[in-house]
């Protein structure tokens, strides 16, 4: 193994840089037909960033509409299409594939000392399926939108909606296979591709988190696939499966949908938790507190996540006894989540904490995820859920988890591994400034929504009682700050590709195999297969950082 592949074009390189995965070949073909997991990670980064800003644009539009209690910018149908589009794009094309697709693809093989994923071609196929599914969604956006909400509840989706439900369903079905193949690849890679000495309990917690995520992807996504297929059969071939006129049960659809879509919440947040484990350890220069507990908490969340879907149907005609069982099970899942939060906090304790950008995002995550998680307990409580069901309280809750949690961790992770991915450092001052701006904008957007929801403002309406206007204006103001705050990273990160200082192999003095290879790494990750004889997060024994 030489760590190099033949370049398809000779490129004059004045600085005679050593070959790495970026300068190994320069053609478009070498990117679009790559089987290198790192290049595929960057392909995902491009696709996901595009969808993030598309989904964000929809949010900007409906937050503008909600500045006033009346319909002045868009009418009801357009409003329905906007929030549907926002939900579909952000969930299926940003949150689900985001961290696994970008950071997982890039880091998983390196972190376990492998040269690539177990199935590199399948990995590339995952990206293409993701993009084909995304193309359907873009088509829907241009053709006229879809208004069912991202949940596609029947019989509206199967019978009554006159929008592009089929094209959307096909897009999500295809993207689902992208998710399934990514999960399959992660599972086999972690089982079979670990380098000598890399035992299960030496794996970085990011790997554990992505492994647990992969389990959910593999077990949950096929159920969404069959559910969407049944809706498509009902809509396309007029086979009545959930049709109440035949005796079919629309709530059965909701059960099947949430059997995937609640675990999918953990697909979205578990990789973020993995990122936070890495960041908190690296920037407090401390061994992660309770490594095994954090690792097993990931698996516990993956397992328990499959047993709580019924809390979405407390008011849908589900039996009271089923509701009580789901309520208790939903509260149980707070335990592994709390274990993680406590362990990260204890990792900070007596650490040498530095407030670099990734750490700012991590601390933001800790606070916001905790609020998101605790309000989840309110919603798991039957009596309170009846009061706040389908109000802005729910909207605020899941945005605290998904944006306050996952997006913060995603941005923190992108900054932390940016030098490794691109070989360039980002401007720290700008990065810290935008991290703080994201935090401020986020809270101003979503904290008022907790109050709005508690006061009774229902979600998914474009008009509202005039008494709610002040809080809505606050929320919209926050959203504009948040929107601008997101523009900073994309600007200075692209800027850094050309003007950023060259990154050393280990700019953070962090431990882990990814920091023991060059920045950016060679095509096959290491010049020779590493042999691991150390635990993950050996900061306590090796305060200077890098091994050897």
């Amino acid at each position, binding site marked *: 193994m030489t760590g190099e592949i033949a370049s398809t074009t000779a490129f004059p390189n004045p600085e005679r840089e050593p070959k790495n995965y970026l300068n190994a070949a320069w053609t478009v073909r070498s990117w679009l037909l790559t089987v290198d997991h790192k290049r595929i990670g960057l392909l995902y980064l491009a696709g996901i960033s595009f969808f993030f800003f598309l989904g964000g644009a929809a949010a900007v539009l409906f937050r503008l509409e909600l500045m006033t209690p009346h319909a002045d910018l868009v009418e009801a149908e357009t409003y329905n299409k906007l929030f549907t589009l926002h939900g579909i794009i952000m969930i299926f094309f940003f949150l689900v594939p985001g961290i696994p697709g970008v950071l997982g693809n890039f880091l998983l093989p390196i972190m376990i000392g492998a040269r690539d994923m177990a199935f590199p071609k399948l990995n590339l196929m995952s990206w293409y399926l993701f993009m084909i599914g995304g193309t359907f969604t873009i088509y829907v956006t241009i053709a006229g939108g879809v208004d069912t909400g991202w949940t596609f509840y029947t019989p509206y989706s199967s019978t009554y909606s006159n929008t592009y439900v089929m094209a959307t369903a096909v897009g999500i079905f295809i993207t689902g296979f992208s998710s399934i193949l990514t999960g399959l690849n992660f599972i086999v890679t972690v089982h079979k591709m670990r380098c000598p000495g890399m035992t299960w309990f030496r794996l970085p917690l990011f790997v554990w988190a992505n492994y647990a995520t992969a389990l959910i992807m*593999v077990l949950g996504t096929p159920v969404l696939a069959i559910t969407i297929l049944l809706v498509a*059969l009902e809509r396309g071939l*007029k086979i009545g499966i959930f049709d109440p006129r035949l005796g079919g*049960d629309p709530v059965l659809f909701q059960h099947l949908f949430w*059997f995937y879509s609640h675990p999918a919440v953990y697909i979205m947040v578990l990789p973020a938790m993995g990122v936070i484990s890495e960041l908190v350890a690296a920037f407090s220069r401390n061994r992660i507190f309770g490594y095994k507990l954090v690792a097993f908490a990931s698996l516990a969340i993956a397992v328990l996540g499959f047993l709580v879907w019924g809390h979405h149907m407390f008011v849908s005609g589900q039996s009271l006894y089923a509701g009580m069982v789901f309520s208790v099970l939903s509260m149980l899942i707070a335990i592994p989540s709390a274990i993680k939060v406590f362990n990260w906090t204890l990792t900070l304790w007596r650490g040498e904490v530095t407030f670099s950008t990734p750490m700012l995002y991590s601390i933001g995550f800790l606070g916001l995820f905790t609020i998101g998680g605790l309000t989840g307990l309110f919603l798991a409580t039957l009596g309170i859920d009846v009061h706040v069901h389908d109000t802005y309280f729910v909207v605020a809750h899941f945005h605290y988890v998904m944006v306050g949690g996952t997006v913060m961790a995603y941005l923190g992770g992108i900054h932390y591994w940016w030098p490794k991915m691109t070989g360039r450092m980002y401007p720290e001052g700008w990065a810290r400034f935008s991290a703080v701006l994201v935090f401020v904008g986020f809270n101003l957007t979503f904290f008022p929504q907790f109050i709005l929801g508690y006061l009774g403002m229902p979600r998914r309406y474009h008009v509202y009682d005039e008494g709610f206007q002040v809080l809505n204006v606050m929320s919209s103001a926050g959203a504009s700050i948040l929107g601008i705050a997101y523009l900073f990273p994309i600007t200075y990160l692209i800027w850094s590709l050309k003007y950023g200082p060259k990154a050393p192999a280990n700019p953070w003095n962090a431990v882990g195999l990814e920091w023991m290879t060059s920045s950016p790494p060679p095509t096959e990750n290491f010049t020779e297969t590493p042999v691991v004889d150390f635990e993950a997060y050996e900061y306590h024994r090796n305060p200077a950082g890098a091994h050897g």
Partner: protein
Amino acid sequence: MSTTATLPAPTAKKTPVVAHHFDDWTQQYDACVLGMWTFLVTEVMFFGGAIAVYMIYRWQYPMAFAFASQELSAPLGTFNTFILLTSSLTVALGVRYAHIGESRKVGWMLISTIALGAIFLGIKAYEYYTKFEHNLAPLLNLPFDYAGPDPGPTKIFFGLYFGMTGIHALHMIIGVVLMALYIPAAFRNEYRDGNSLGIEIIGLYWHFVDLVWIFLFPLLYLVDRSLAAPV
């Protein structure tokens, strides 16, 4: 290192070419087999979703489902079950011949499996045809003539019948195409060294497709026949 191996260890007489990112053949072999098993898990969840829907409706409408089930031909279903189980035997023999390096016999076993699969699909197509002929296909707003009780849930039964057996048939067609792709290699004697990996992978898939039918057949054809007297 192999914690999930469920098949015999590779018995290649000559080590096949190992892909660049694997250390050795054993790692590649284990990874591919585990990958296929993981894929089959996703298939279990996929069909499991449809079977769950079926079970819930059958529990809700036991009489309608019992009567509707009478409209399916149990003899044809039984014969198809026999055909498919036999094809499992032929594909298993193919894997065995690949293990011991009898490459041409692998080719003949694949051809036999494809032939049996084609017979199954032919009978299935005939069954579909009779359903359309008897106006028992509740698709595309076609006329639905059903004299028995509860036409609504009966429509759901036939909707699920077409949906579930249709998805199963699609899986069989994919399997037949994949097996056909392996035949030229078999007759070029490429399995003489006992490199059975590809055949084992397709064999796993085919066994799974058989197994799905083993569930679908009793669920759809053999609903408690005492509930509904023969019409």
